[in-house]
């Protein structure tokens, strides 16, 4: 990996944080395609055959174009690391990702803002998944207490392509989170968008996931799981539009509430093609009573049982 000489300290600081948080440090290896951003600078960049990453430093952030050629299958994920190591400020990152035909790639995206006290992070991603390609995009976060996060992802999945997007913010908090994910699917394309968020204290969380099932036989799943504690406020909107012949979509939202948290979920299903089929399931409330009592009957206290159930829900 090419590391800019005057940025070695920041690079090493990020590595230390990976170590401390139990994240995979091997993602910084030479065989992994990667872009490492700190603040408004690119501090590391690595390309591997079939992957071309070009970065550009912009005002308050970085813009990156990631191009995957046709027929590429990578043994390692592509690493997108966005760090901000100061307490205050604003950062904007833009990723334009284009995956060619018949490729299979995975992205591991890490947002590392461990010292944030009053910090705004804005991430805009546009992802195109080529015909018959498969893309997995995992988004994980390490935050300090004072992060305001705005994340917008637009995905276009071409015919026969598959996109799996996972957003996880469970070990750390964003005081304010606005998460928007839209997937537009062509014929026989598939998308699965999953978000798992834990809101605590006075966090405010807004999640909007949109599934546009435009192609015939396209399929999509939206799944949101939110655990809301304390005085947090959560609003989840899941939208699915059945437009193509035999398109199938399912949206699922589960929210567990404790203490004085204020939670709402709005499922929106709209069909403009009588051959399309959309379904949804949603639940808001305390932890399922049957789950609790069945674990308690094996000797766990109510708190221990709740902790195990929540850990499972959040995939921790």
């Amino acid at each position, binding site marked *: 990996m090419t590391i800019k000489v005057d940025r070695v300290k920041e690079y090493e600081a990020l590595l230390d944080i990976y170590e401390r948080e139990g994240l995979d440090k091997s993602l910084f290896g030479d065989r992994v395609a990667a872009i490492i951003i700190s603040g408004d600078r690119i501090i590391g960049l690595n390309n591997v055959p079939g992957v071309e990453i070009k970065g550009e430093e912009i005002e308050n952030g970085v813009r990156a174009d990631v191009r995957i050629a046709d027929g590429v299958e990578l043994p390692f994920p592509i690493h997108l690391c966005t760090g901000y190591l100061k307490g205050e400020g604003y950062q904007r990152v833009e990723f334009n990702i284009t995956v060619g035909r018949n490729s299979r790639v995975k992205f591991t995206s890490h947002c590392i803002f461990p010292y944030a006290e009053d910090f705004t992070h804005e991430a805009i991603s546009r992802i195109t998944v080529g015909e018959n390609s498969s893309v997995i995009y995992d988004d994980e976060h390490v935050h300090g207490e004072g992060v305001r996060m705005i994340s917008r992802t637009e995905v276009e999945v071409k015919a026969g392509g598959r996109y799996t997007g996972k957003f996880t913010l469970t070990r750390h908090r964003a005081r304010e989170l606005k998460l928007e994910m839209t997937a537009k699917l062509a014929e026989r394309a598939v998308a699965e968008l999953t978000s798992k968020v834990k809101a605590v204290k006075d966090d405010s969380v807004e999640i909007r996931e949109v599934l546009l099932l435009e192609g015939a036989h396209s399929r999509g799943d939206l799944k949101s799981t939110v655990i809301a504690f304390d005085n947090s406020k959560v609003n989840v909107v899941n939208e699915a539009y059945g437009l193509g012949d035999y398109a199938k979509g399912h949206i699922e939202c589960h929210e567990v509430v404790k203490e004085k948290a204020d939670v709402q979920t709005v499922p929106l299903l709209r069909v403009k093609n009588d051959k399309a089929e959309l379904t949804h399931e949603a639940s808001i409330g305390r932890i399922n009573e049957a789950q609790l009592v069945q674990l308690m009957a094996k*000797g766990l206290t109510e708190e221990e049982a709740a902790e195990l159930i929540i850990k499972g829900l959040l995939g921790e």
Partner: protein
Amino acid sequence: MLCLRNVGYVKNGRKILHGVNMTFREGMSYSILGPNGAGKSTIAKILIGELKPTSGGVLLDGRDITGLGVTERARLGISMAWQEPARYEGIRIREYLTLGGKLKAEEDEIREALELVGLPYELYAGRMIDKTLSGGERKRIELASLLLLKPRYAILDEPDSGLDITAGELIEELLGRFRRAGTTVILITHHEEIAGKTDFAYFVCAGRLVKKGFSREVVDYYRKTCGRCLFVEGSP
């Protein structure tokens, strides 16, 4: 020894149980047999502390445990495998069986428990207890969890429901295993052939105890009456 003493239970003004007395001795196996709606599952829930009786009490080794909750009773050795085991998003079977690591169990013990209930360890230990599992598979996991837990009293609520035709053999195998471990089994069922596999049986109907004794005798009586309710609420 675990006892129900003159236990009554009223819900929404309706009497579900009418002064039921039952005794479960160490190391023996019992059935609570009766038709649907007889009050069998209510008895099970009172035994584990999920429901509190509106009259009477529950005694363990002579100590009144009526006021104890589910966790406390489980820690005294009274546990249950549910008729409809819950699903848990994101929890693997191994994690469920060991209660998230709270129950210390060797990997070999987990393997043995799973394989005894007919679930190959390699296929199941790492799987999630979510909606990808059938009701029968979850039932078998529930039974495996009690094998690992080794309680003093194992209540099996309708253990054969949702299982295939091998259910009878599985229950015989489980009864043998629990007996060898010194666990008292209390089996809730409306199938007389399943009830016939235990040492003793209680026949309950419309919330009343109709007959008790060796399971063969009770099952014969149950067959003769075709499991019909002999008591109708409001009858003399």
